[in-house]
């Protein structure tokens, strides 16, 4: 019929708004830490990292960088989370090099590597790759959708 572009665009809006998205308020109450960091500092603009060694306030970002970061926030929120149950298969978060403690909030990447949620979110906000296997998280996510 040719009018598929007229569909609602709530999805785009939710990506741009990040964790104050109204669509899935319960799926990820903590959200990426840098975004939280940004929320708690009301007086100054939020701080983002377009690449790992680059630190910029939201007002300094180019339009392209803003879009990239908004996409990152949206994608991170779609990655599954859980709590450490004492499983012997995973013991340590390679980012903080600390042992997982029962009840720690975890995030699972599509490549099956697991980290503390706060640790991995801090990295994914800088670069969307798995620290352990360098697999791009967005590509892996698409593949896992296709195979499911």
């Amino acid at each position, binding site marked *: 019929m040719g009018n598929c572009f007229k569909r609602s665009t709530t999805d785009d809006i939710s990506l741009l708004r990040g964790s104050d998205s109204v669509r899935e308020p319960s799926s990820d109450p903590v959200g990426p830490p840098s975004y939280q960091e940004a929320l708690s500092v009301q007086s100054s603009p939020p701080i983002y990292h377009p690449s790992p*060694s680059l630190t910029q306030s939201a007002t300094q970002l180019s339009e392209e960088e803003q879009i990239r970061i908004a996409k990152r926030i949206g994608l991170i929120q779609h990655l599954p989370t859980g709590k450490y149950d004492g499983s012997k298969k995973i013991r340590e978060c390679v980012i903080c090099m600390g042992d997982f403690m029962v009840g720690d909030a975890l995030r699972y990447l599509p490549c099956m590597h697991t980290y503390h949620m706060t640790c991995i979110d801090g990295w994914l906000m800088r670069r969307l790759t798995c620290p352990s296997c*360098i697999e791009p998280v967005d590509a892996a996510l698409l593949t896992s959708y296709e195979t499911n």
Partner: protein
Amino acid sequence: MTSAMSPSERRLQKELMSLIKDPPPGVSVDAEQAEQNLLQWTIHMEGATGTLYEGESFQLQFKFSNKYPFDSPEVTFVGSNIPVHPHVYSNGHICLSILTDDWSPALSVQAVCLSIVSMLSSCREKQQPPDNAFYVKTCNKNPKKTKWWYHDDSV
């Protein structure tokens, strides 16, 4: 004491302990200096036996920001003996992709040291980088500010 540390200090403290306890061959850390200032370490490195650098010893300086391990360490050769190598400039700057573009928080000081040992060990001819004179004259003091063009993985 541990609870007052930032996440980057906690991780550096763990890395320091494991490097002191179980260092890779030919690598040792100046523990006293690192304990005084966790954000700047000096590492001694011996040229591996059977390589062009056998019998030589080098010093590496690691500087960490409070965003480590999200932000890669700044790593340079320092001291009187800078290895003559196609990826090491005479001011100590190292052209190694894991120190910038390919950094990952799953890497560590130990992984960087092993990578540098292996970079030196695979060298077949001691030679400075072709653009050494120009680079050393014009570069930023911080090698992480250099837009490295990684073009040769063979050495």
